[in-house]
């Protein structure tokens, strides 16, 4: 189990954190965001507009997820942040540093240890528990956006449960390529009502949303939307009877580090040796290696 507790803080960073509130926001802002979260939980899959704040990290770099994390953060929380599966990727490091600097809460790389897990584009391999909250960063919360550019119109389509566009996008893929050719962000139907963008997690991760033990919150900072999949909610990836949903498959690959197969892998090509495969979830890979 790898734990990076907060390092001794330098004088200047102590000063800096003193000028900011606990978990960055003023309490009024946190309350407002939590209210949007509660509404999102009450209407699974529905995109709740919220007054998204500007954050010290760029819009489009996870500010939606970060605002959810900061508004939920308590002193006893243990936070894990991953970016495209990696604990140590630039943006994950930067987000963790900000959370730690403004709250001094404990940061972890262990999925099992974390109470709040903020992630960009992956759900960890280790099954989540009821006492954990999964927070996904979302670039484009609107699953119908490629079909209809206007927000005014997509809102109406959701209200009327008119999801022709979502089906049409899949159908056109089948006509053109003989299969559903989309990659990540494959649309899902939540509790039989709202079609939802699961954020650009690979299709491999979609089934983890179905009947998840953990609460899943999704935050889009730039697009100013929060939505949720409450625990034990039915989440179905859109598909057709004769073209069933097909997640990415890594059954014939083995991780070059831990040797596992069938987990989501990165393709590594250093231009010298043969192409290697490696677990994308760096935390679970290290645990499998026993490091």
């Amino acid at each position, binding site marked *: 189990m790898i734990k990076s507790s907060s390092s001794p803080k330098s004088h200047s960073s102590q000063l800096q954190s003193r000028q900011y509130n606990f978990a960055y926001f003023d309490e009024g802002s946190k309350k407002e965001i939590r209210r949007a979260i509660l509404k999102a939980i009450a209407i699974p899959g529905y995109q709740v507009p919220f007054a998204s704040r500007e954050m010290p990290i760029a819009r489009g770099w996870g500010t939606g997820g970060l605002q959810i994390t900061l508004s939920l953060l308590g002193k006893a929380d243990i936070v894990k942040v991953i970016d495209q*599966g990696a604990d140590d990727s630039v943006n994950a490091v930067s987000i963790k540093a900000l959370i730690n600097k403004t709250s001094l809460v404990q940061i972890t790389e262990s999925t099992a240890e974390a109470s709040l897990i903020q992630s960009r584009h992956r759900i960890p391999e280790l099954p989540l528990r009821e006492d954990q909250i999964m927070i996904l960063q979302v670039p484009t919360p609107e699953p119908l956006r490629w079909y209809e550019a206007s927000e005014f119109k997509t809102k109406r389509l959701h209200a009327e449960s008119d999801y022709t566009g979502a089906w049409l996008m899949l159908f056109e893929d089948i006509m053109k390529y*003989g299969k559903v*050719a989309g*990659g990540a962000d494959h649309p899902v139907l939540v509790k039989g009502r709202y079609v939802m963008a699961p954020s650009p997690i690979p299709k491999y991760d979609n089934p983890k949303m179905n009947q998840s033990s953990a609460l899943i919150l999704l935050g889009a900072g730039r697009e100013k939307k929060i939505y949720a999949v409450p625990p034990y909610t039915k989440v179905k990836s859109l598909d057709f009877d004769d073209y069933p949903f097909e997640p990415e498959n890594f059954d014939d690959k083995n991780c070059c580090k831990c040797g596992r197969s069938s987990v989501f892998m990165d393709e590594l090509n250093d231009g010298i040796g043969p192409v290697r495969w490696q677990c994308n979830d760096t935390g679970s890979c290290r645990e499998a290696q026993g490091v």
Partner: protein
Amino acid sequence: MAYVAVKGGKQAIDASQEFLLSKRLKSGVLLDVQQVRAGLRVLIDQVMAEASMYDEQLAALAIKQAEGSPEEAVFLLRAYRSTLQRKYESEVVDTGKMRVERRISAAFKDIPGGQILGASPDYTHRLLDFDLFNEKQAEPSQARSLPDDSMPLKEDQSGHLGFDQLPKVVEYLRDQGLLARFENNDTAPSDVTKKNLEFPSNRSQRLQIMARGQTGAVTSLGYASLRGYGAVHPTVAELRVGDVPVYVAGPPPMDGDAIDEQGSYYIGEFRATEVESLVPVNKIEADGKQSLSFELGYGLSYGQNETKTIAMSLLDQCLEHPNEKFATHDEEFVLLHIDSVESSGFISHLKLPHYVTFQSKLVAVRASRQQESPSNAQKKTGPGAP
């Protein structure tokens, strides 16, 4: 491996941050915040407007820290703004009470109170002034006394109007019935920073978003509307730059507080640019006859930001008249794409790793290639995962 090296990312980031710091410091010449404030007035105005935060000192600090990048400086201020509690709402600001420093009309040659050129590069030749290489600290005698404090505020002996009571140029057209007179709409504006914009939007939301819009973006779209991708042909009735006082309705006064008749407090003033553009429109009367009249396009922004504010007044008119033929008349197109923090943020997120999404796409592309017929092989894929 690249920048998501399984371990070592943190050290690389620390090193990058140090490198960035050294870029600012390595010349050995330190830029003082006061120098930024004194010498980069126009940049400060631009940054304050886009940040929608009026604080020259903090804007100067942000510009120093950002090494002069407006998008970074705006970003810093907006992020800081998120941590501040908003305690008061000001009373309605009356730009008619603006202490005008510059005021021009393109519609009329002579206007009550006169054309006041004020400070503007409009009338200079854009020739590099090589003498500035050797400029010494200005001697006090060189600096002309500025209108701010020395000018009379009320009507002076010669009968000239005070600089804080110049009538609006458009009042003349209103008096003549060429511009409709409306009742004041005193509905409280919806604060776009507290409530997410929903469509169709109202005018207060549109004006707020344009006032804090990125200068170049607002200018470009305004230009597009003027050049042909829009149906608005305006004349600037009045552009004014000056300081407007701000009042808040306050709690009971403490001793010595300045308080006016209505029980509101003067808390300071801010510099603003205001533009009122006249746009001819075809009106259909009740009896079915058509008549020409004018409508007003409105622009307002912090500081002296003239081009942007004029462009804003054009876009305001465009958005008042939705027109499917032109993107500049589409409120979602205009309002959702002109924010500096949003556009720069999302564009720059393309620099983040996309290994998972790309891998996912790669798997799909390979699979579709394996089974597709040779005739289909050249077809391209759909839109990429964000």
